[in-house]
């Protein structure tokens, strides 16, 4: 997932919506897409789904971890 590309897609949609040559038909489906994208993105940003891990070994070349939360 890339936040940046999603956000720029929404920005693009907003721009198109503001253009008079975009047909009503088109703008309705653009609007739907924009709302769907932004809601999904908002959900990703606000949902607590992080992983907190602790690294166990002191060895510089080993990354054994355990989950803290």
């Amino acid at each position, binding site marked *: 997932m890339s936040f940046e590309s999603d956000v720029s897609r929404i920005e693009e949609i907003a721009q198109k919506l503001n253009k008079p040559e975009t047909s009503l038909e088109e703008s309705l489906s653009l609007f739907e897409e924009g709302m769907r994208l932004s809601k999904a993105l908002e959900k990703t*940003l606000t949902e607590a789904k992080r992983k907190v891990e602790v690294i166990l070994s002191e060895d510089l070349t080993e990354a054994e971890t355990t989950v803290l939360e």
Partner: protein
Amino acid sequence: MHELFQTELTVSELTSLIKRTLEEGFYGLKVTGEISNFRPSSTGHWFFTLKDTNSQISAVMFKGSTWKVDFTPCEGDKVTVTGNLDVYGARGTYQIKCESMEKAGQGEILALLEARKQRYASKGYFDASLKKPIPRQPQRVGVVTSATGAALQDILNVLNRRAPSLDVLVLPAVVQGESSAISIANRIMQANSLLLCDVLIVGRGGGSLEDLLPFSEEVVLEAMHQSEIPIISAVGHEIDWALSDYVADLRAPTPSAAAELVSQGYLDLRQNLKTLKAELKKAMEYRLTLATHQLGKLEARQIHTIIDNREYLLANASQNLINAGQQKIREFQARYQSAVRELQALSPLAILARGYATVQSESGTLIKSKDQATIGEVVRLTFIDGQRIAKIKE
């Protein structure tokens, strides 16, 4: 003094003389000694003795001053105090009333740090050109700190509140005592050798000057300097500092503040999304207003159908849009009527009715000036009720 030999004094008179002499003669003192017989009172004052190999002096530090001392003295601590001599007449004792206290040798530590700072500055370790940008929306943040300290909890709490989707990797380090500098440096190198995260917070909570020293040790500064991962230094409280603050790519005043810096991009993104959503809605509303215009004849019901079919989210706004559309139509009608009135006022017939006439050549061209009418030419005059032919005489 001379008079004293001829005067008979009471104990109080003598005591008050001694008090004056000692207190006016011994102030602004700076004394170094070892703490012994340390007795903190329940009211917050400290009573103790300062001693060296041959002498000792009673000392007191009142609550108004003790809160400023960043450690609790222990038996045997070598400290430097500042203060004034104070005579307690009721007991006939004197003591030093302390205003500040620091561990002896702090001056030396500070001088050492300052020298080290100069050295690393001249080596270019603090150069602004070396500062790596902190990623705006990191995927995983590494935290080098004590696994049991409050700093880690602070960081986890702040991150959870502001960027709950951001993964965290804790690299536990010893942050106090002999082995701490090496432990911190190792964790920084480990994060780098495995590229475990895209930004690192290195720090600990507040403490005394000595407590924070590991973060000024050369191994830590070297590890930070070599780090490919951008580092935020977050040592102690706002007023504390360590040399790591200068080598790191960014200095945060506290561990919590470091977590805030790391999550700022996510917060901005959330705000940005909110604005974009509002913009989408506004643009769509406007489109619908336009459409309502164009489809002026469409029934409200038909528009509802369109909207429902699309599961359009602003369904309840549609009536407002139709109302707005109808309002626009009424405005247009009013403008049309006033335009008609204006046109009528400008009609040539209306002018003729007021008693004016037009002059045209035989071919029908309107004659607007005397130069257009040559002498002898035959012209046509139009009145409100008909025409006459005339001839230009002069």
